[in-house]
């Protein structure tokens, strides 16, 4: 996934779309928005970041899971099998992005990149609604894919790269 922070207005449409798409219970969310402002008036800079699970290549959440509920599916999406999750919370502790939460039904839940939509040829709900079209989804393994080209062509950063998890969400400046 790639997110252009020079266009995001922080409206939260991605958050609502995720909730209505995935029936995330009220009071919880799989994605959220952060506003980052720096400088002193009037020399200021500000941007928003729409955040969620980074679907890392190196997954401390999967490593720490005692039951195998946390796993990586083909294509690199990190998922939790709800029935196998015992709610121990080890993955929540292990995730540097605070991307996982306890679902009130007793398991750990998180962003799935809407794999049910992706399997159907659609974009994840958050990407598909964004009014600014600042979010892009595609195959990062294919160097010729639109998203790979986009990331290559723009100055970009990932979150907490020092955690060594190889996060798969790129923020484009």
């Amino acid at each position, binding site marked *: 996934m790639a997110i252009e922070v*020079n*266009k995001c*207005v*922080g*409206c*939260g*449409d991605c*958050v*609502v*779309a995720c*909730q*209505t*798409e*995935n*029936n995330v*219970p*009220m*009071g*919880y*969310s799989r*994605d*959220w*928005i*952060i*506003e*980052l*402002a*720096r*400088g*002193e*008036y*009037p020399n*200021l*800079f*500000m*941007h*928003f970041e729409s*955040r969620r699970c980074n679907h890392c290549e190196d997954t401390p959440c999967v490593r720490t899971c005692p039951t195998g509920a946390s796993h990586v599916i083909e294509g690199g999406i990190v998922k939790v099998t*709800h029935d196998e999750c015992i709610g121990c919370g080890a993955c*929540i502790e292990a*995730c540097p992005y*605070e*991307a*996982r*939460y*306890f679902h*009130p*039904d007793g398991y750990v839940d998180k962003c799935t990149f*809407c794999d*049910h*939509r992706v399997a*159907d040829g*659609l974009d994840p709900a958050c990407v*598909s*609604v*964004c*009014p*600014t*079209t*600042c979010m892009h989804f595609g195959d990062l393994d294919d160097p010729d894919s639109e998203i790979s080209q986009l990331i290559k062509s723009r100055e970009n950063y990932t979150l907490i790269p020092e955690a060594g998890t190889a996060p798969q969400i790129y923020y484009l400046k």
Partner: protein
Amino acid sequence: MNKLNRRDFIKISGTATAGIAMAPPLTGIWETIFPKEKKPLLENEAIKTPTVCEVCFWNCAGWVYKDNEGKIKKVIGNDIDPHSNGRLCPRGTGGLGMYYDEDRLKKPLIRVKGKNGKSEFKEATWDEAFDVIVKNMKAIEKKYGKESMALLFHGKTGPHFEHLFKAWGSQTMGEPAGAQCLITREAGFIATYGAGLASPEPTDVRNTDCLVLIGNHIGENMHNGHVQEVSALIDKGGTIITVDPRFSTMAAHSTKWLPIKPSTDLALLLAWMNVIINEGLYDKDYVAQYTYGFDQLKEHVQKYTPEWAESITTIPAGDIYETARMIGGASPRVIIHPGRHTAWYGDDTQRTRAIAILNAILGSWGREGGFYFPEKVKLPKEAHPPFPKPKWSWKNISREKHKMAIMGITNEIIDHALPEYKGPYKVKGMFIAATNPLQSIPSQDKIKRALDNQDFIVVVDTMPAEITGYADVVLPEATYLERLDHLRTAHHRQPNVALRYPAVKPKWDSKPGWWIAREIGIRLGLKDFYEWEDFEEVLDWQLKQVGSSIEELKKVGVKYFPRKTPMYLKPGEEYWFNTNTGKIELYSTDFAEWGYDPMPVYKDHGDTPPGYLRLIYGRLPMHTFGRTLNNPYLFELQHDPLLWVHPKVARIYGLENGQEVWLKNPKGKVSSFPIKVRITERIRHDSVFMPHGFGNKGRIFVDGKKMEMHRAYGRGILDSEMIYNIEKDPETGGTGMRNNFVTILTENPHNKKDKES
């Protein structure tokens, strides 16, 4: 990035991750909406119904998706709709929360006793409610005349009741969308071009080279099509210049931000004209062919130099020269955006006229990358007898004082409803449809006195907003997802029609506006004006007159029609503008005749009084005024309104982030509720900012049981509670609300006894 100082970090949305809950989870309603169900619904497996969104008034077309049990699961934009291009904003995406909201008005209510908004009601049948309404409307007619029954309205509910009122014989009507919002801008452009802007504004943003935003918060106000076009402009690398005392979202995305001292925008506009004219950066051929009064304008702006403007706006003269040259260099592919909510300082028609004039000398009106000529589909109106002519109407109330009052001025209607009003145009009854005047019109105390002076008040709404408590009869309207309304025929690049069709039956005992209006009409003996049973018949007939039908619209949602005229002026094309001179009037002949300034003159609006801070109010992208606060999805997304204060102010008052404070204005009025502080560099040291629409205080009792918007109640401060100074725009009567000041109280000023009283 971590090394930079004063890093201001705020989590905007998303309540609980890793167990950090910002608000207690909303249980209860969730189980009723989606009981223990996890499987997402794919669009191609769903039943879809076309809709036109009513969460804001951009009116995007979309599709409502239902599962096979008929439950609404999501609302998604219609790909072919020019307002949304298939992408709704957070409010549209969360629009289903409006339908599911358990605090909705469910049954007609009749007042039992009480005044001052704390009324007691009993549930009634529709027939009982209609009987009371008809009896009281007839009593007002007998005692004062039909004209004394006024209609206040907003949105797509409005036209049903406008029809009812016109058929009955009262045209005493107005909507806050005029005087409290965009009438001054319309007036400024009409005086210049002989044409207003309406909605969506015909700004060719996606094709422009330079967009100038003045106090215009695209991105915080989520007028969808505009947000999308600005985003496309960023992609293209176009220039964006934002003028704002606050480091707004769009300021952050701009090529150049001019942090202006509040209330001085007109000085900047005049200085820009000065540079653009004196340096010959204007479109000379266009000015020569299409405009009237250029020589007067040139002479008029000579005194408004950038150096003069620097002393007023605090923007360095060098920046004014630089931006004027950026703007002039882009001519004619440049837009000085007219804005939308332009009721600021009481000379708002003149300020928006300066914007209109600037666009004219840049040659951007009727040009690609400037303002396009929009077109709309003209649908024939259903046949009915001619409306009776009232003895007086909103025109007498508004236009006798304000020549450019092109629509009913709500605040003037309120003035005519006060007990001290002794003139001939007395308002003694009110029918209030889908608007909450206690929030939308400033001067709460005055409005309360006007409401208390009414013989009879009807409120039609979906939610128990504050105004509900002042009603004698409350009628529960169905939400936009449950009802049929007039077709959307708003003008655009390509004329089009969009259909809102009910996706589900109205919940509880709520009813669509058309049905409510028709039932009252028939009981008032106006059967001739309602020669149809179901409003769908009217829409189908209208569509058939232009070669379509309801059946077709149900399949496509939006239908396009061919343009009849070109979208832009051809080079050298002869064009007649609808003004006295037939030209774009840089010098307004009407204004000269009526005694208004024929060209904008800068007026000083004074400084912030010592010990006070200017109150700047604005929008959050996920809310539309007070109408969305109780929507469970949008409440969840943002329910903690924050008061932005500069770090210097925080030091003076000893404030901390997240601390609750109260506001007090110079008249001694203290806010009912507290608001949490956000310390940020994004606001000037002489101002505070807070979002509009919070501080809900509506509460009624129905058969002894409390009824309120329980999520929204008491959260934050309502700006209209604090606004005491209304600077009236002489041309239109619009209410300038930005010259208001407050001070911060850190101790709870309400003692226990009268808390929440």
